[in-house]
């Protein structure tokens, strides 16, 4: 969709890759080089310590999509289709060095997140009302991103920042659009897709709308969130407990 243009140069992996099973570049010099490469190219989305942001939390002992070194190499080289993770034209050694640094992130941040997870769940289901908009397993709403397995994807610091101030960074796929048609109708919702001549959205009630741009008099599109800031709605302990609960949410294993 929107990010396909950035994938032009990477494309599909060749059918057979002559890759070693284990990372051959893991010396301390490799790690230092890997850190430099990571800070330039990866930290923007994955965070300087790998605790996640727009990109996945890499500071975990086992990366869900890259349990072995070859998988990690392939993800860095070719990206992940249907996600915003692009490939890279780094050479083999640089990819391995980056992979080595990514692995090192998991070993330093394995400490458990502080807070009472049971109270966190009470906050989630009660006072914070998260499931009105977010799915958790088979429960919850669909207006916001799913929380199933969120602890495996996002670091605690990132979760805390997003709950306290959700407008700080809004994912491209949660772009809010307000459309006024030439015949005077107004439709508001989440943009699901867009091209040169049409736009598709889902309104708060879950109804789909598709409009030709030639029918549209005004189109306001912004990366904005309908999620309220919880900085003042939860006290410090509640926020800490909620983050602890979400960090422990690893989805169905």
């Amino acid at each position, binding site marked *: *969709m*929107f*990010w*396909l*243009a*950035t994938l*032009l*140069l*990477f*494309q*599909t992996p*060749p*059918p*057979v890759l*002559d890759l070693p099973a284990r990372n051959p570049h893991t010396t301390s010099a490799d790690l230092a080089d890997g850190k*430099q*490469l990571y*800070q*330039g*190219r990866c930290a*923007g*989305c994955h965070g300087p310590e790998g605790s996640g942001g727009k990109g996945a939390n890499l500071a975990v002992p086992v990366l869900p999509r890259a349990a072995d070194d070859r998988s990690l190499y392939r993800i860095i080289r070719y990206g992940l289709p249907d996600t915003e993770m*692009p490939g*890279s*034209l*780094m*050479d*083999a*050694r*640089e990819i391995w060095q980056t992979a080595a640094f990514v692995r090192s992130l998991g070993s330093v941040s394995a400490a458990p997140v502080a807070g009472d997870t049971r109270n966190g769940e009470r906050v989630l289901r009660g006072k914070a009302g998260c499931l009105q908009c977010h799915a958790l397993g088979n429960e919850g709403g669909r207006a916001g991103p799913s929380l199933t397995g969120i602890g495996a994807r996002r670091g605690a610091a990132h979760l805390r920042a997003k709950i306290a101030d959700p407008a700080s960074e809004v994912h491209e796929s949660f772009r809010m659009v307000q459309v006024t048609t030439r015949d005077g109708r107004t439709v508001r919702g989440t943009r699901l897709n*867009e*091209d*040169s*001549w049409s736009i598709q959205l889902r309104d708060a009630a879950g109804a789909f709308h598709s409009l030709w741009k030639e029918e549209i008099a005004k189109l306001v599109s912004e990366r904005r969130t309908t999620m309220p800031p919880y900085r003042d709605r939860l006290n410090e302990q509640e926020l800490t407990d909620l983050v602890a609960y979400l960090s422990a949410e690893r989805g169905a294993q």
Partner: protein
Amino acid sequence: MKLVIAFFVGLPLLAQVTHERLLNAEKEPGNWLTYSGNFAGHRFSPLQQINDTNASQLQPAWVYQSNSLQKFETTPIVVDGVMYISEAPSHVTALDTKTGRPLWKYRRPMADDIRVCCGQVNRGVAVLGDLVYVGTIDAHLVALDAKTGAVRWDTTVADYRAGLSITVAPLAVKDKIVVGIAGGEYGIRGFLDAYDAKTGKLAWRFWTVPAAGDPEAKTWAGESYKNGSAATWVTGAYDPETNLLYWGTGNPGPDWNGEVRAGDNLYSDCLLALDVDTGKLKWYFQFTPHDVHDWDATEVPVLIDAEIRGQKRKLVLFPNRNAFSYVLDRTTGQFLMGRPYAKQTWATGLDDSGRPIRVAGTSPTVAGTRVWPSVAGANNWYSPSFSPKTGLLYVAAREAGSVYFFGKADFKAGEQYNGGGFRSIPGEEEWGAIRALKPTTGEVAWEHRLFTPPYAGVLSTAGNLVFGATNEGQIFALNAATGKLLWRFQGGGLVRSNPMSYLSEGKQYVAMALGNSLYVFHVR
């Protein structure tokens, strides 16, 4: 008896595609005999059955589905009711132009250790005599019998294990097949070749990167020319009056680390004018000396005769990946005009000789440097179009920048030699447009805005139409004079190809590869 023999001997001769026919392609507008439709690189169809009054009624006539999941970049060639297409990685199929039914198939087994930066793709075939020519991803040039698809000859152009491959559509000129090489991300030594069309024997080779002792070697620090790349992966143009072949060259290697190759790095990012009989260099023009952003000058040169600076001249137009559109005298290579046609932040302008005046601090860094245009450029390999009817040059322009990274560059044969990398600019809203440029001034006559930067070429027709395509799966037709949208079709796949048009049994069709299929449209 004599008459009968003459009849049977004469028939196959009629079906032959001679150099004369290629020279006079406009006399048979129902066929599409070369990659760009004519030697001048116009990608213009004189057909007008489909025009601005009935384009809204365009609909699919047939669809041919390729089995490959690689990008489908072919431009079909049409000769007397038969369409010849290439399919990834290096297959050729002959199709009936009316029904889309295959007539024969050439299927080339492929090694599993092919080295390519950007997909195992192929942009089309060439025809001459009774042969069809295809360059292969394992760097061979193959001649096939146009009637059966049987291999007539198969010449090894280069060793694919060193990262050389062929993706370009060859160009048949006189008795030669001209073919370029890809591999600019592998530190190759680039060249352009011409082969004897009948035998497959090498006629000449022009090295785009010097050898030790050549004067051009002084434009490369130390021995950096040895891995200088300057690939030749997009089909050029030919002018029978100058007898020159006009062909673009790609980026110097390594792409983003210029420190290891101080100097202008000839002949990377150049337009070359070569004598087609000998391969001797008549002139060159370098668009981006010492390129550190991967802005290959591998676009299609467009040859026109027009008045500029009060004088009618033989020109070559070149809308470059570096975001400037150039006008050169194609007899001498003299720079006449250059102007940005999309956002760029790397040069304050061009000097009187056409050399860019660079903005300081735009080279890649370890932390990343933001520069417009993006690594894919304001334009890329896909074709522009020139309409002699409107006098406008049509370009699918890309409005995007990149963050460019500097990295170490250690050459190892057969491995990528990039010296850095790139990513998109966080939060940037990329977009694109079909732009109609006044060719000699570079002014924009009109533009049709597109949601994302396009990566597909354009075709103009005498029916006052411009055809193009989007990343979101649409093929569309615009009014060539105004840019107004007249028709669109959602085909549900990425478009990485160029449109063309032809006649079958006297009826006009427009063809373009989309996703993994070739779509052919007509008006019922």
